[in-house]
C-alpha cells in the first residue's frame, strides 16, 4: 500500500495521471470551487481504476450556495469536520464496500446518487427496460408520484 500526499489540486492531478489510486481523501475547503472541478475531472477520466476510485471529501461548514455542487461533485462520501480516526476509518470501509454503480451522463459523472431502488412510482409502469417493474413497487407515494414527473 502506498500513500501520496498532495498539497495542491494541480499536484494531485499530476499524481493521478502518473499512478493508480483506489482511495482519495480530500481535506476540502468546499468553498473553493476547484475542489468540485477536481472531483468532476477525476470522474470523467477515461481509464479505470482512477475514475472509479473512492473519493471522500472532508469538509467544514459549507456555504449554502455550494451545498448542491458538493453533492453533485461525484464524491462517494462527504464527511463533516471535526473528524476522528474512528469516523474516518468507518467511512473508508463503507466507501470500499459500497455497491452503487457509477453513472456517466452529460450532467453528472460519479456514483449513482440513488441509495434505494424503490421501483417506479405507485400506479405507473417503469419507463426503461431496467426499471424494477415486476420486482417491486414503491411502497408509498414518492417524489415522482407527488409531482407527476
Amino acid at each position, binding site marked *: 500500500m502506498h500513500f501520496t500526499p498532495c498539497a495542491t489540486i494541480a499536484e494531485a492531478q499530476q499524481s493521478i495521471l502518473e499512478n493508480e489510486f483506489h482511495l482519495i481523501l480530500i481535506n476540502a*475547503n468546499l468553498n473553493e470551487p476547484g475542489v468540485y472541478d477536481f472531483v468532476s475531472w477525476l470522474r470523467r477520466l477515461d481509464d479505470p481504476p482512477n475514475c472509479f*476510485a473512492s473519493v471522500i471529501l472532508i469538509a467544514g*461548514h459549507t456555504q*449554502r450556495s455550494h451545498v448542491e455542487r458538493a453533492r453533485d461533485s461525484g464524491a462517494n462520501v462527504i464527511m463533516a469536520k*471535526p473528524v476522528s*480516526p474512528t469516523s474516518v476509518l468507518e467511512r473508508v470501509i463503507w466507501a*470500499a464496500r459500497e455497491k452503487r454503480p457509477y*453513472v456517466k451522463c*452529460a450532467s453528472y459523472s460519479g456514483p449513482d446518487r440513488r441509495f434505494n431502488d424503490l421501483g417506479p412510482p405507485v400506479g405507473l409502469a417503469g419507463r426503461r427496460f431496467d426499471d424494477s417493474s415486476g420486482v417491486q413497487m414503491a411502497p408509498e407515494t414518492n417524489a415522482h408520484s407527488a409531482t407527476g414527473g
Partner: protein
Amino acid sequence: MSAIFTTWKNPLDSMIRTPGGKRVGDILAQAAANLELIREPCLDDVDEQLNALEQLAAEGGALPDDAIKLDMYRRANDIHAVAGVFGLKDMSDAAFCLCELIDRLRDKATWFKPAIDVHLSSLRLLRQPSDDERTDVVESLKRLTEKVAPLGAAA
C-alpha cells in the same frame, strides 16, 4: 448523451478483507498517539485564529468589506475543524454557528456586529476546558442566528 452505468468492484474492498496486517485497535491507538503529538501546536493555532477573528471584527466595524467577512468565515471554519478534534466540542460547534451566521449575513448583504461579538465572546469562554455542560451556550447562539438572520427572509 444517455446515461452509462458501470459496476465497479473497488480493489480496496479485497485489501480490507484479506487476512493479515495490523489490528484495527492498534491502528486507532497509533492514530490517537499521533494526534496527541500535535495537540499543543493545533490549539496554539486555534488561539491565533480567535485572536485574529477578534481583531478583524474590531477593524471591520459596523459594516466590514467582503474581504474581511470572507477572512472571518475562513478562520471560524478552521476553529470549527480543529477544536473538535482536541476535545473542545462546544467551541467547535460555536465556531460552526459563527460560520453559519456570517454566511447568512453575507447572503443578505448586511451585517450585525453585536451578534458577531456575542459569538466571539462565547468562543473565548468555550476555549477554556470545563467539566460543566455548556451545550446551552451553543443552543443560544443558534437561536440568536435564527433571530437576526432567519433563512429565506429578506434583509
